[in-house]
């Protein structure tokens, strides 16, 4: 499997992991009756921090693992497999565009919730959810573009 594809799958998996954590925490808060300000903002910090840390660490580990596997398979250390060419960059840009569109839609929905007299915490919760879903949709679209060609 190409390096770029593995990286996308790893990033997608880490985003999904964060989404599951977010949904569990939100469900817990909603079961208790209401969104608590301090907990929502702690959740914000955890989600943003975890997304960055998990993604970086998992990509580093994947790169190391892939290098080892390739070195064992071929018997040589080749850096050619980590080339990012014009097609990779194009797919990356297309994926980012999908991600931004999904996030913008989420921001719009969260503002709509604010307009519809929902408490500000609902808006903040929807904002962070839009961020996670934007990342996931961006990665899924990258996978799609890789399968399609570009």
């Amino acid at each position, binding site marked *: 499997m190409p390096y770029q594809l593995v990286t996308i799958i790893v990033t997608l998996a880490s985003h999904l992991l964060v989404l599951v954590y977010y949904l569990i925490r939100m469900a817990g808060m909603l079961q208790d009756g209401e969104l608590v300000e301090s907990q929502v903002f702690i959740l914000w910090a955890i989600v943003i921090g975890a997304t960055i840390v998990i993604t970086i660490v998992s990509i580093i580990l994947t790169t190391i693992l892939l290098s080892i596997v390739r070195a064992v398979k071929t018997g040589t250390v080749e850096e*050619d497999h980590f080339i990012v060419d014009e*097609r990779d960059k194009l797919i990356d840009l297309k994926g980012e565009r999908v991600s931004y569109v999904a996030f913008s839609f989420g921001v719009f929905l969260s503002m709509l919730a604010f307009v519809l007299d929902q408490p500000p915490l609902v808006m903040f919760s929807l904002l962070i959810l839009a961020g996670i879903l934007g990342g996931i949709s961006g990665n899924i679209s990258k996978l799609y573009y890789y399968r399609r060609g570009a």
Partner: protein
Amino acid sequence: MVKSQVQNNIRILRFHHDEMTQEQLAQKVGVTRQTIIAIEGAKYSPSLELAFRIAGVFGVPLEEVFIYTPEDMSV
């Protein structure tokens, strides 16, 4: 699958160059093998620079590698 309007003869040219592998061609032009696969399958139209590099590897003019078929002429 979306097919590009830019068709190519890369497979034939590789065959005529001692059955050059996709990996070898990819290394010579500085892209990944997946990009060569996508170009060969007409799923991706390369940049002009990459197209010239591919033609350069085979030592033929660009038009012998890539053929542009306008939409209204394609089958």
